[in-house]
């Protein structure tokens, strides 16, 4: 029994809840949906001083507040975002504010996109090594790095930051394998693990891996709301200059940034919080912003045909699936689940839902994330075979099912009727119901015996390991259902992924093989139906340079290399 997943589970939800609609934001161009979409944003309404007042960051930025006189002075990169700030506390952060925090704070390292030559980019750590058994990891830190508040970044700061996350962080569970952290010397820190785990992936996590100034950590330990007025103390290239809740965030250069400010750089980054995709489109077209993080799905196709814009289209971590409620007839019968999986026109689902901007999923592991395997099988639509299976199950006359999906998620709302129509073809009457994600999840979790028959969910790993996350959280059996909401219980599967997880570091090949076996078993038994991995789509105007999407940071964009010429 591994403690890590149990620790993790409760926290997963926060981000799922909050960022449900953000799928669009993160896969970028995905849609807008009128009032429906706003919700994700509300959930994240800043927990600090409200309204129209502007709070100025109390950190070490050297710039003074912008005034009208400077209007033509600074070179400003203007970005429209949908991401609200649920917290400015880098320790607690587990939500959409990652977009901003990723530019203010840094971790030990960054994981590169799958196509990069190197797997990692060293940031605060210059190098690291693991012991043979994968239980001891040593990180050598970069020297001469200072936090925005002037404090030096050293081993003690790293230990303090990660200890704080373990203790009170939203994503604290990612450090579960870490038994203790030792300060070897000023710039060397050693992680002692209780079981082997891929520490690079954990240290490169989007959440729970920022290194924060010890002064700020102390202040936050004493006062829970210390960060909330817009205080920060990172090492990143940008300082938070000002923050107006629900309205805008202004970042300005941290002059002492260790990476330096040579070459083409922006002086400031102005982030306008604009929840509406249509509005963002207008701002982008009108030149009011240089970049928009969320455009209507339909608009991306138009931009692709226009001069002056490049559409960046990459795979993402966002995996769409639906659980079957395997506790109750008829879905307790694998044949019925297979029949339903075969009734779905996956091409149509992809054409209608994300407007073609997706790839059919191979199980719950998104493409490009460990342990994704091209040999995991997929279902294709075959109505005859589906009918035969139903006949074998004695259900040739059909039956009815109830499906719920998140009202906040426009893409789910679009493809749910496709499922309805497809199931009707094999005599299955599907009732689709849009309810708030929280409500939907509550229903599935609290009363499995009476819960919905099908539950559509958008899922993504917390950090770059879908073995210990997606495969574990979604389908491994457990006594109290949390995210394994098909309530599936298969000892063979459980054993396969437990063994595979333990071998991730020490014997990756064997681990991959076991995971592969588990995924094949999973798809065959079909406790869920796997739709697609959504693409991340960004429209980048030609005058913006340095844009780079990194799938490992699905809610972040890095502004340091970006300029608007």
């Amino acid at each position: 029994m591994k403690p890590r997943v149990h620790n993790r589970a409760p926290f997963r939800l926060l981000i799922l809840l909050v960022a449900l609609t953000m799928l669009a934001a993160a896969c970028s161009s995905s849609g807008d949906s009128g009032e429906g979409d706003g919700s994700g944003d509300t959930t994240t309404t800043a927990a600090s001083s409200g309204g129209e007042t502007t709070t100025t960051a109390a950190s070490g930025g050297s710039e003074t507040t912008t005034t009208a006189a400077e209007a033509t002075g600074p070179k400003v990169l203007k970005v429209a975002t949908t991401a609200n700030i649920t917290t400015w506390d880098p320790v607690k952060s587990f939500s959409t504010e990652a977009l901003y925090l990723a530019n203010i704070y840094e971790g030990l390292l960054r994981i590169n996109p799958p196509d990069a030559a190197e797997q990692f980019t060293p940031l605060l750590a210059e190098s690291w090594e693991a012991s043979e058994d994968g239980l001891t990891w040593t990180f050598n830190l970069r020297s001469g790095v200072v936090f925005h508040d002037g404090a030096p970044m050293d081993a003690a700061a790293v230990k303090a930051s990660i200890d704080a996350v373990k203790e009170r962080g939203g994503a604290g569970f990612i450090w579960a394998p870490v038994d203790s952290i030792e300060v070897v010397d000023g710039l060397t820190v050693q992680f002692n693990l209780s079981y082997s785990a891929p520490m690079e992936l954990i240290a490169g996590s989007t959440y729970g891996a920022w290194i924060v100034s010890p002064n700020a950590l102390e202040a936050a330990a004493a006062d829970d709301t210390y960060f909330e007025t817009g205080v920060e103390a990172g090492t990143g290239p940008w300082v938070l200059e000002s923050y107006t809740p629900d309205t805008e965030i202004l970042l300005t250069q941290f002059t002492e940034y260790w990476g330096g400010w040579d070459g083409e750089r922006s002086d400031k980054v102005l982030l306008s919080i604009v929840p509406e995709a249509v509005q963002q489109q207008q701002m982008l077209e009108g030149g009011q912003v240089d970049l928009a993080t969320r455009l209507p799905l339909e608009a991306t196709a138009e931009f692709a045909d226009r001069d002056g814009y490049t559409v960046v289209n990459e795979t993402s971590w966002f995996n769409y699936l639906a659980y079957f409620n395997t506790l109750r007839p008829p879905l307790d019968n694998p044949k019925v689940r297979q029949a339903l999986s075969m009734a779905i026109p996956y091409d149509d689902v992809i054409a209608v839902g994300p407007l073609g901007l997706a790839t059919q999923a191979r199980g719950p592991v998104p493409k490009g994330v460990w342990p994704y395997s091209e040999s995991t099988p997929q279902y294709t639509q075959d109505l005859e075979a589906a009918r035969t299976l139903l006949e074998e199950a004695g259900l040739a006359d059909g039956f009815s099912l109830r499906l719920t999906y998140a009202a906040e998620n426009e893409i789910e709302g679009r493809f749910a009727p496709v499922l309805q129509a497809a199931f009707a073809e094999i005599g299955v009457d599907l009732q689709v119901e849009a309810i708030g994600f929280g409500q939907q999840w509550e229903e599935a979790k609290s009363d499995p015996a009476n819960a919905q028959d099908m539950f559509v969910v958008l899922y993504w790993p917390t950090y770059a390991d879908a073995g210990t996350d997606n495969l574990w959280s979604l389908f491994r059996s457990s006594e109290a259902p949390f995210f394994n909401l098909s309530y599936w219980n298969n000892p063979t599967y459980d054993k396969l992924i437990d063994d595979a997880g333990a071998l991730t570091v020490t014997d990756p090949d064997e681990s991959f093989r076991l995971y592969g076996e588990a995924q094949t078993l999973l798809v065959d038994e079909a406790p869920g139906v796997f739709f697609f991995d959504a693409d991340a789509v960004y429209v980048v105007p030609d005058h913006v340079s340095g844009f780079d999407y990194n799938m490992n940071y699905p809610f972040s964009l890095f502004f340091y290399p970006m300029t608007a010429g």
Partner: protein
Amino acid sequence: MTDRVHSDGTETDAAATQPGSFRQVVAVFTRDRMATAGLIIVILFYLIALFAPILAPYPDEGAGKPNASALTQPPSAENIMGTDQLGRDVLSRIIIGARPTLLVPLVVVALAILVGAPLGAIAGFRGGWVDTVIMRTTDLFLSFPSLLLAIAITAALGRGLFNAALALVISWWPWYTRLVRGVAVSVRQSDFVEAAEAIGLTKMQIVRKHILPNSVTPIVVQATIDLGIVIIAMGGLAFLGLGTQPPSPDWGLMISEGRSVLLSSWWVATFPGIAIFIVVFCFNVIGDALRDVFDPRTRR
């Protein structure tokens, strides 16, 4: 005074309302061609709603079935009003959507009358503490902006067409209580009720025989006008996601769905919008004509 202002801004000065008869209602339409045209169009729309599945060119799509091969197509010979984001024929959606959009408000107003009118009759006729209790209760409900109350009730009950309709009934009945009470008070003060009492009719009989019949015309006039308002309110709830749930069609919901493609594909939201506008406009034209005849304020 403001207490007497009805949902459409007219004063419910029912005491002065002439009882009027259906013959007069008919007369309105023979005189006023605009009203007649309005009535014909409204009837037409309701017929469409009744026979929707037969009339819709693509009934499956109208009911919600997507068509992956024709996403957001502009109006053409095949799809006169184009298709929406899910490739569904907008015209078919409008025709099928006419049912929840037009028929449910009819039921809502009918139920509001069924609840409100008897209460008003009792209050006006009995007077005394019964009157006070009933009228204070209506005051209470009317001190909320009606749609706001309906939103809050739907939120509390849970979203969906049924709950939205129920919420509107709860928000709307007091208007009719007030209206009928006015009639009842004026009837009670008239001589023939005294005569009726003298010959030994019970109070219930008087209410049934005199007050309710006298209320019919003002109720019909008011209901006509209210229908337009309730259709908008119902559409508003659907627009907010509280009414009809997708993939079922509803004009308010369609307008909301069309919002995300408003600038690139105007037809998705515009046609259902025009449909709702035409119906409500016609109800208002009819209402105005009726009011001109039956509202003593504007009568010569």
